[in-house]
């Protein structure tokens, strides 16, 4: 078993899936010869050839629209959109076609494709390179949205995403691409979509976090633990469809729920989770569900980025307030 970071774990999943199934193709800007700007697809064109790992023209709607066309034949394209800031040109294809073809054709056609997107802030990148717009995707019917937070999850979830008969947006927290190492087994089993992971057990408070925010939540939980507050951390892993039962079960136990996301606050996914708790666990609550999120602003350029990101101190502050409620 090798100790891999997220980049390597995703690369491994791609490689193993491509070996397993000749219908799996990769396409995107710079994914081939260069191996991707983050090196996620490194070496794959060398192994599988230019027919299966395609450098594409610089045209995001084209990448997704073409991947959709490929998938209608039953192929399993894995498209890369270089940064989430460049995902918006693809939303039309995702909303109007990718998420609809199964329903439109009453199941005759489906779109078993994956769109991989590095997302999120915290790496001092230029404008448009730090977006986190998962709430928009979660609001779109007919697609699935997956976000890993560890190398093993990344490998196992991506395998499921590729094998899934329906389209999956696979969001990769680039801030922790190389920050976390973990043992990842060769030929590991896929991790089923739609199931949350309990990252840490705790009795006083449930934190819900995904992607790079899991690590921030863990840091916050460490601080809180010193104060005697035991935070449970739930990583939904799949944001759509959401494992609401796992979240609700935890909140019913702890009576407190704090959602952390780096996306803008208003109409973010934190709102949905708060609303779900409202509907299904209100009477268990000891304090209102709280959200620690990015602001309803543009993500600042690197020099101001730290002010925007939910840092452990902000999470701790919200948790303390909750405990005092």
């Amino acid at each position: 078993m090798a100790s891999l970071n997220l980049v390597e774990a995703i690369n491994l999943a791609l490689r193993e899936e491509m070996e397993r199934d000749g219908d799996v193709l990769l396409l995107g800007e710079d994914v081939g010869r260069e191996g991707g700007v983050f090196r996620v697809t490194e070496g794959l064109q060398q192994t599988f050839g230019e027919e299966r790992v395609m450098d594409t023209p610089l045209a995001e709607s084209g990448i997704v629209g073409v991947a959709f066309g490929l998938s209608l034949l039953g192929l399993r394209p894995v498209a890369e959109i270089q940064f989430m800031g460049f995902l918006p040109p693809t939303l039309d294809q995702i909303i109007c076609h990718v998420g609809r073809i199964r329903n439109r054709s009453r199941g005759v056609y489906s779109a078993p494709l994956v769109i991989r997107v590095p997302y999120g802030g915290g790496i001092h990148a230029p404008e448009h390179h730090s977006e986190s717009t998962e709430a928009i995707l979660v609001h779109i019917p007919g697609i699935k949205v997956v976000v890993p937070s560890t190398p093993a999850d990344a490998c196992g979830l991506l395998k499921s995403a590729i094998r899934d008969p329906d389209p999956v947006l696979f969001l990769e927290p680039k801030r922790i691409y190389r920050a976390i190492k973990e043992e990842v087994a060769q030929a590991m089993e896929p991790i089923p979509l739609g199931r949350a992971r309990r990252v840490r057990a705790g009795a006083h408070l449930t934190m819900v976090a995904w992607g790079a925010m899991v690590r921030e939540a863990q840091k916050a939980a460490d601080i809180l633990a010193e104060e005697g507050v035991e935070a449970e951390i739930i990583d939904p892993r799949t944001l759509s469809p959401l494992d609401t039962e796992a979240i609700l079960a935890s909140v019913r136990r702890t009576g407190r729920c704090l959602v952390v996301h780096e996306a803008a606050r208003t109409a973010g996914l934190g709102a949905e989770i708060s609303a779900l708790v409202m509907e299904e666990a209100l009477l268990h609550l000891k304090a209102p569900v709280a959200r620690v999120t990015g602001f309803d602003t543009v993500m600042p350029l690197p020099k101001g980025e730290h002010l925007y990101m939910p840092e452990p101190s902000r999470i701790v502050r919200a948790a303390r307030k909750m405990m005092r409620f």
Partner: protein
Amino acid sequence: MNFDDYDPLQGKRLQVLDPEGCADPELLPDFDDDTLRLIFRWMLAARLLDGTCLTLQREGRMGTYPPVEGQEGCQVGSALALGTGDWVVPSFRELAVALVRGVQMEKTLLFWMGHEEGSRLPRELRYLPIAIPVGSHTLHAAGLAMGLRYRGEKGAVLCYFGDGATSEGDFHEALTFAGVYKAPAIFFCQNNAWAISVPRKIQCAASSLAAKGVGYGIPSIQIDGNDPFAAYVATTAALERARAGEGPSFIEAITYRLGPHTTSDDPGRYRSSDEVERMRPLEPLVRYRLFLKERNLWSETWEEQISSEIRDWIAEGVRKAESLPAPGPHDIFDHMYAELPPHLARQKADLLDGLKEE
């Protein structure tokens, strides 16, 4: 026929059958009489079905509907060129193509009646469901064609769209991808002079839409779109290129939408009836009738007879479409994913409960 002989930048346009019904013997495909008559029959079928749809719409038995009148020529001609392994990626006005390709008539009717079953087209047809967002489907054609190439299949993809669609970014990206990957795709533009109320000249300042092919390295041709033979000949040449691994082609068929954009549209607001009257003598059935007559393949009785056969067929199609029950509440949920996820199961149960209570 060679695309190179019809350089759109030099204002050339392929025509086989002129408005007087005279066919260029050099270019006329080698069809037997049955086939020559069949072409008329398909065009007539589309024309009559189109009329039926307008009636159904007026009677409240169909929703908004986009008539095909005037465009039957290039649709039938191009569709007849296809082989069984080829795919069709239609836009929304390809009634005649659908008929020729064997899409069950009731499917098309059901679609415009607002029933999802209208898009349940068996895979073997290789005919994608209607695509409403203008231009967006051209990318699917590019992707399908790239897939056929990857799989080593012999088929090609024929994608239809209008003049307006050529302004969309997706059209550009589709031709870009198809060109770069030498995808076996044929981009077939029905330039019917209008995009709802917007005339062709507001779509693009180029002298022809076919000129666009140059910018993608895609051989392009402008054809008389009211001439089914020209459409057949150009599509056949494009298919040969595609099958030979030579990549995509772009065909601009100059035709005219005689009817309104859809049944919700009032063309009197933006074009004169004079214009329409000027175009009417150019439409495909008129010239094709003259052509058949000249060859003693047409008579009034024959047309009456096939019209009556077609009308029976249409009546049967309408009956089938109208006899299908409306979709039930489960239909909303059951095709969203391969497996119904829990949140949709809850929503479905909630809807069913509510309906039960009522």
